[in-house]
């Protein structure tokens, strides 16, 4: 194993500051790791020349004493973030030729703070999927394998490339996005840390839109502290996004390691679902015991509308997607297919450019918004959404944060769930509620199952209270002592 790529982000930043190595050396080590890891299919585009140029510029800044908080750190960028002059596909054929002429706000803030871009990371097409299998460019392969097996496993989705790149030590951290669980479920499947902040913390400007009232960016990282460092850079008010919150951004890393003594941790009883593997039940019990030992008070809470969150999501998200994806018409950018008239050009372009899952969701969204069904489906789902948010409001009267499993299983085999859309959707049963309510949620690795695959615990916080989430995550990380890494086979 290469010593430089096995560093955490924090350790790498400390090493750069101490002069132990340069950003060019650090970046070169990661470029080599990326090239060696092509069987994982984590990157849709490698940008080694740009990475080395950014690294050299970083070393020059540091020599002048002008280094930023992430200066010289090589990162991977989910290919949903528009990057100026660098192809951005959303893992869709319809955006295959698209080269943005602007930079997303989130990535521009990472570059402002000195980070280095290694390339663009694979994902489910338009971030619609939980296994990375909807990518038009083939699925990412999870670096983890079951003990004694060569079966290819999913890294989860939609941020499967981000999670895999971090888990396989291809980058020090990665950007990701989460509409129903797309940061947290892949983090759980790969033994990494991922946080979706409060809706509005990260600007959506320049992020390819899926479902605008639910989409939120966040980092995937090796440790809780690394996730906090990245999130601090990614957050902040942006006038270009009308839902961006104009609130101060705390130094999230300062919350990691803070005592959690006296915090009240809620355990939602509705998250004990049927057929949950005993290992996940046990992991959850371990998490409760660790937090008790750290001085937390454990309280049972009820979120009675939990079971309705996924069906409500599968109205709201496709409805917003059908509207957002109407822009792909073959006129101004992206793919254009020929046709006998304008309508046929539209229809053929979209038939050729979108994959099956994206089409399925656009059709559902169009159906629930169409005349005669709007009240019965869309309006009903928005009312249920409020019921779900109210459940959390009531829970916050009794507790300061919630502890749940992140996903109902460990990573599964590629192809295992792909013929049953609803079985695939159920992956997000524990994560989707926080998107509907706009709350921060963090997943951290806390144990291994009998096959040696990582399992995650999720901490859900009050709106804008990522600080408490990071403190609880820090305490759990310390108690769990999760140090396992995927055995390198690629």
């Amino acid at each position, binding site marked *: 194993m290469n010593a430089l790529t096995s560093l955490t982000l924090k350790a790498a930043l400390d090493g750069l500051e101490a002069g132990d190595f340069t950003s060019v050396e650090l970046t070169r080590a990661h470029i080599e790791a990326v090239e060696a890891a092509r069987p994982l299919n984590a990157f849709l585009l490698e940008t080694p020349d740009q990475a080395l140029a950014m690294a050299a510029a970083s070393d020059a800044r540091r020599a002048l004493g002008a280094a930023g908080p992430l200066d010289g750190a090589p990162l991977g960028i989910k290919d949903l973030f528009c990057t100026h002059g660098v192809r951005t596909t959303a893992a869709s054929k319809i955006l295959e030729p698209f080269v943005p*002429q602007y930079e997303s706000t989130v990535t521009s803030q990472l570059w402002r703070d000195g980070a280095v871009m290694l390339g663009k990371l694979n994902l489910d097409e338009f971030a619609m999927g939980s296994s990375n299998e909807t990518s038009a460019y083939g699925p990412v392969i999870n670096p983890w394998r079951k003990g004694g097996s060569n079966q290819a496993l999913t890294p989860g989705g939609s941020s499967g490339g981000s999670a895999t790149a971090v888990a396989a030590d291809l980058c020090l951290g990665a950007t990701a996005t989460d509409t129903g669980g797309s940061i947290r479920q892949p983090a759980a499947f790969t033994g990494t840390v991922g946080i979706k902040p409060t*809706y509005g913390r990260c600007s959506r400007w320049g992020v390819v839109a899926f479902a605008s009232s639910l989409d939120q960016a966040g980092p995937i990282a090796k440790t809780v502290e690394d996730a906090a460092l990245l999130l601090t850079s990614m957050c902040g008010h942006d006038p270009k996004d009308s839902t961006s919150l104009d609130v101060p951004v705390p130094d999230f890393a300062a919350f990691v390691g803070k005592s959690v003594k006296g915090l009240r941790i809620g355990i939602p009883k509705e998250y004990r679902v049927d057929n949950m593997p005993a290992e996940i039940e046990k992991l959850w019990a371990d998490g409760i015991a660790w937090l008790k030992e750290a001085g937390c008070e454990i309280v049972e809470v009820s979120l009675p509308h939990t079971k309705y969150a996924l069906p409500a999501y599968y109205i709201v998200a496709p409805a917003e997607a059908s509207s957002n994806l109407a822009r792909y018409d073959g006129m101004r950018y992206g793919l254009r297919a020929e046709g006998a008239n*304008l309508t*046929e050009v539209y229809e053929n372009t979209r*038939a050729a450019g979108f994959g099956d899952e994206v089409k399925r969701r656009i*059709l559902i969204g169009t159906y629930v918004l*169409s005349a005669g069904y709007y009240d019965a489906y869309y309006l009903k789902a928005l*009312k249920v959404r409020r019921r779900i948010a109210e459940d959390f409001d009531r829970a916050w009267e009794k507790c300061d944060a919630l502890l749940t499993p992140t996903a109902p299983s460990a990573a599964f085999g590629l192809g295992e769930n792909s013929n049953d859309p609803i079985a695939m959707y159920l992956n997000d049963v524990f994560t989707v509620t926080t998107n509907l309510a706009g709350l921060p949620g963090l997943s951290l690795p806390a144990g291994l199952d009998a096959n040696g695959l990582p399992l995650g615990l999720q901490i859900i916080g009050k709106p804008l209270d990522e600080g408490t989430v990071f403190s609880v995550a820090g305490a759990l990380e310390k108690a769990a002592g999760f140090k396992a890494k995927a055995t390198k086979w690629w």
Partner: protein
Amino acid sequence: MAIDAATVRKVARLARIAEPEERIEALAQELNGIMTWIEQLAEVDTDGVEPMTSVVGAGAPLREDVVTMGGDAVAITLNAPKSTGGFFVVPKVVE
């Protein structure tokens, strides 16, 4: 409400996605499966509940009514499938 082949054809037309005739029946079944699962929302009592359109507080922010970006036809048309002289070239719409 069951989704039949005619509904799928109508929705695909509204969504401007060409679906080959041999896919229509399978799509109707798939969408029916998903919509049947979604029907459980009917169990939730939502009388008097205000629809939740956003988790961010009401009131869209306002800014000065000035041009912030623009005036760069080259950059804007750079990704167009067809363009000429800073204009998008689109199929003929008016006969």
